[in-house]
């Protein structure tokens, strides 16, 4: 069963085509990897799905209902959530309050701050930040802020979660912890996840299926094994002999 479908979506910024006629779909409960070099259009794709940007062309459907062109807050309430690549904590609020925003305003629209606080504490526990719950968000390390970014996205109670390089800049130990955490969260919460990651091992490990973007278009799609053997992907990442000589 398909949860999210992207149909021939195009996004231009002036003369630059950031996303060029991209189509793919994500099944319920799937973990899909989104791969591609810098500038391939991965983050723009997330912005289009979350409603931070509007596509110039094409459509995006959640459960068969078109959502492109809706405001980000409406899309969030429909169950789509996004962790930003460049973390955006609410710096002057506590870790707990950061996560409460998701509970109060996301898909669940919790009206009681007491219930929201209890649920937020649970999520903070799940991402391993319990001892920092009452500290200001800007006192966290980068790894802590990435966890907070995930916690806040989870607190909106999404069906569909987009993680944008949540492991960039983490140490190998922290990456291993984060992979275990994401896998656990995904299975416990019946989440559908799309994950952008530059740490290749992570995608190979987490995602049964990977879509590769290149210059705004879909270059390849398949299992990690297929992708790692794909001549076009290898060329896009490593270049051909001639290119590297030049």
């Amino acid at each position: 069963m398909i949860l999210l479908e992207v149909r021939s979506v195009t996004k231009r910024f002036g003369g630059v085509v950031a996303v060029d006629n991209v189509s793919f779909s994500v099944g319920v409960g799937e973990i899909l990897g989104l791969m591609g070099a810098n500038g391939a259009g991965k983050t723009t794709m997330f912005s289009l799905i979350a409603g931070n940007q509007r596509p110039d062309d094409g459509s995006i459907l959640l459960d068969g209902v078109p959502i492109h062109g809706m405001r980000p807050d409406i899309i969030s309430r429909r169950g789509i959530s996004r962790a930003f690549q460049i973390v955006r904590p609410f710096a002057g609020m506590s870790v707990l309050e950061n996560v409460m925003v998701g509970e109060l305003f996301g898909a669940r629209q919790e009206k009681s701050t007491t219930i929201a606080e209890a649920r937020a504490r649970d999520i903070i526990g799940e991402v391993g930040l319990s001892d920092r719950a009452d500290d200001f968000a800007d006192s966290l390390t980068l790894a802590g802020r990435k966890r907070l970014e995930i916690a806040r996205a989870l607190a909106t109670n999404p069906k569909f979660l987009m993680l944008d390089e949540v492991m960039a800049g983490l140490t190998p130990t922290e990456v291993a912890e984060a992979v275990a955490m994401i896998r656990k969260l995904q299975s416990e919460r019946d989440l559908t996840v799309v994950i952008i990651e530059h740490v290749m091992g992570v995608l190979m490990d987490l995602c049964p299926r990977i879509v590769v973007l290149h210059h705004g278009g879909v270059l390849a799609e398949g299992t990690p094994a297929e992708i790692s053997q794909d001549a076009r992907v290898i060329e896009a990442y490593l270049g051909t002999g001639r290119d590297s000589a030049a």
Partner: protein
Amino acid sequence: MTRTRIPEIGVIVAAFAIVASLPWLAGSYMVSFAFSLMMWLALTQSWVLFSGLTGYISLGHAVFFGAGAYVMVLCWGTISFWLAIPLAGIIAGGLALLLGYPCLRVRGPYFVILTFGLAELIKFVVVNIESELGQFSRVVFGGPGVDQLFHVMVGLAAIATLMTYVVRRSRAGVGLRAIRENEEAAETIGVSVARYKAFAFAASAIIPGMVGAVMVLRTTYFEPLQAFSPITSFTIVSIAIIGGGDDAPGPVYGALFLVVLQELLWANWPQLYMIILGLLLVFFVLWSPDGVHGWVRKWQLGGRK
């Protein structure tokens, strides 16, 4: 998360009840001092409700004060002032919705300049209307006595303080502060930012409109350049900077400090007042952006650890 506590609300109400009993306890000097204190407290609490929580610094709140005053003089002789005061609040709130529509689309310095500019524009519109009507200043005689007006002002200050206290601790308060910290992130996790900003801006204009209406009755005359004077906006922002703009105690510290300073310096060294206020603002902006309330909170947290 800081939450609303009934005993704290009790303390706030009791404190204002004590202030309201001043006419029976103290002389007229004390009452006029407290009048000024309550006016600035009501204005700054209302400002904090919007600007303090959302981070959109309004430099145009004088326009709501002036609009309220203007509503009062226009209603004078037609309807009872007890009706004119709430009407002034409603019209100021409506004006904020109207002004918010263009202003709330921009952030940071652009919002500051736009609110200031529109407030000045409306001031000169009223000046021109009044001179076309052949009115250069209007006199309002036969209004309620000082003590009665004082009680209304204490009531307005109490309501403004409770509004900031309760909203700051509510679901809406969490959303407004999320807008302050990162508007795009707030919107992405579900806060309907446009609606929240518009409602908060309107809510923060209602009490200043009513305060303006009461002040016309207190001063017994209306002159547009004075009623819409931008000094009102500057003073509100100064009080919030000195006291702290993130929660209800801030304006209390700030208003007390500023009104005491005014009393001390205006009587003896009026030329020093603006210089000292300027130095204080520089000090607080650079070294203590959380204001006096920030110190108090740090001191309380330090004591607990």
